[in-house]
């Protein structure tokens, strides 16, 4: 139904996305997620030709709309757009907001337009507000009117551009409920959103945008439960990562500990856990150093990942060299540190390949 071929958009020197190919089937609900500034809004605006693409094509029902001889106004009737900031017509009341386009663009009969508008208003639960002006409504109500306004033109597809980002949490529910209802009724739609739970729930397919294009896409279930690529995983799990590398015996352990502490405090990790992280790393590093010949410099890299969503901490510890698994003989009294680590950790795993030891520790 909508298909793009190598869509390319830039603002001056800055490329927003390039080689972007999407294909949306009729009746699909596609969620577009990704960090801010990765071009989700620009993508929507480009699809609706509010922004001219700098390259590539957009097809609707097999017809190219990026060509020269296309009447944009006719095409736009097929698009509905719901904005983050609502943008209701402030000089018209709710009913006129909804009937304006059907009356003036579609030339629908006045009585018919009003009946349809009242129908839509009752669908979004605002029947009694038909004579109010936009400034008299709450944000959530305004957004519901905006949804009704775009539905009044019977669009083939509705683009929801962060429909709840400007709303306070008490109002997002009412708007999301309506979008859910529309999705269930089989309306084709694209939603860009930061509400992950909602996206997972309503979308059949998910597009993750990052690095100037589509970074990963797939079924909602797959993207949310089993993301394949690094950045997607970090975004979905709300991972915060701290990495550090050691290439000399004379590294500054105090500075390392301070950095770890600062990282942890930024994400409000409790003090006890911070101590545990530091302890585990210290012991591991000392253990590695003790196992090396004195003239060999260590090659250690580790990352601390904190998942805000689950409150979990994962330490990934890499060291190059010969195989080395400090957890093999646990009861060794010489390695008190290892016993300590085993006591603190929930799960420990070790893996050796291509001269690289990888130790994963969950705390």
């Amino acid at each position, binding site marked *: 139904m909508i298909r793009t071929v190598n869509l390319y958009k830039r603002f001056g020197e800055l490329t927003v996305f390039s080689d972007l190919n999407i294909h949306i089937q009729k009746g699909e609900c596609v969620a577009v997620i990704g960090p801010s500034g990765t071009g989700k809004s620009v993508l929507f605006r480009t699809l*609706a030709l*509010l922004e001219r693409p700098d390259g590539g094509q957009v097809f609707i029902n097999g017809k190219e709309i990026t060509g020269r001889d296309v009447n944009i*106004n*006719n095409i*736009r*009737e097929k*698009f*509905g*757009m719901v*904005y983050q*900031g609502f*943008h*209701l*017509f*402030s*000089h018209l009341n709710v009913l006129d907001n909804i009937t*304006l*386009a059907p009356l*003036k*663009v*579609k030339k629908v009969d006045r009585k018919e337009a009003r009946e349809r508008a009242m129908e839509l208003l009752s669908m979004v639960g605002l029947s009694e507000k038909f004579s109010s002006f936009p400034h008299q409504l709450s944000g959530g109500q305004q957004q519901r009117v*905006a949804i009704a*306004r*775009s539905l009044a*033109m019977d669009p083939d597809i509705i683009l929801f551009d962060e429909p709840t980002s400007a709303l306070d949490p008490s109002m997002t529910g009412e708007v999301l409920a309506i979008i859910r209802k529309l999705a269930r009724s089989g309306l084709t739609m694209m939603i860009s959103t930061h509400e992950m739970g909602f996206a997972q729930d309503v979308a059949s397919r998910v597009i993750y945008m990052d690095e100037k294009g589509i970074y990963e896409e797939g079924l909602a279930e797959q993207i949310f439960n089993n993301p394949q690529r690094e950045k997607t995983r970090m975004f979905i799990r709300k991972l915060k990562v701290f990495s550090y590398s050691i290439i000399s015996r004379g590294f500054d352990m105090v500075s390392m500990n301070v950095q770890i502490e600062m990282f942890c405090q930024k994400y409000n990790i409790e003090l006890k856990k911070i101590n545990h992280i530091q302890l585990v790393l210290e012991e591991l590093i000392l253990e590695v150093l003790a196992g090396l010949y004195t003239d060999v410099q260590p090659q250690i890299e580790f990352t601390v990942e904190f998942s805000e969503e689950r409150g979990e901490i994962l330490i990934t510890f890499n060291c190059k060299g010969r195989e080395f698994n400090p957890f093999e003989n646990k009861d060794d009294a010489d390695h008190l540190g290892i016993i300590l680590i085993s006591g603190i950790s929930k799960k420990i795993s070790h893996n050796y390949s291509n001269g690289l030891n990888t130790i994963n520790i969950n705390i």
Partner: protein
Amino acid sequence: MKQRMNLYVLKTGDLSLVEFVNSVANSFDKNIIDNNGWLVILKGLEITLFISITALLAGTIIGALLCSMRISKVGALKISAKIVIAFLRGSPVLLLLMVFYYVVFANSRFDAVFIAIIAFALNSGAHIAEIMRSALSAVDVRQLEAARMLGFSKIRAFMAITLPQATRIAKPVYQSATINLVQWTSVVGYVSITDLTRTVNNIGARTGDPFFALFFGILIYLAISYMVNFIFSLQGRKKITL
């Protein structure tokens, strides 16, 4: 009236009020009634209103033109509009009027009233252009975009969304510009037009009672201002019921 007055004097013995009322009535007779003074004033009022209304209409058209040039994307139009507006707004309207009357149209056969209308239309046109521009820029462009998304063409979206909102924003400023214009027309006496100000001045000079005549003139200007406000408020009321 006289009987009542006499009655009042008999009752209170106070003559000062009677003297005052008598002098006012006397001045009124002398200035307004005698020699058909009121007809002359009416003639002057007509001139004032004619100049004001025509200049306002022409000024609005000129303003719209200047404004559309000012906001156009063509650099030459934009800059020339900017210069014209700056010049017209920056020069005193009386000097503008005199330049037109004594220099530009000195050898033409144009009526002084016509020349005055040109001068005032240009001056108020420049002001109105800026009023329109600020009103247009105050309208939310995203609403225009929302209308485009619903299938409106550029021009129709402008007519349906931007124009009504801009009109509403501009109205109070436009209203005071109108009243300003009416009052500024009082200087047309400088170019030999017998407008309202000139007539009351003449009458005052003739009767030797300038205070009353001039004060009467002020009252008429005041009445015009109220009239303007009333007309604008009518338009506002209609909007809401629509």
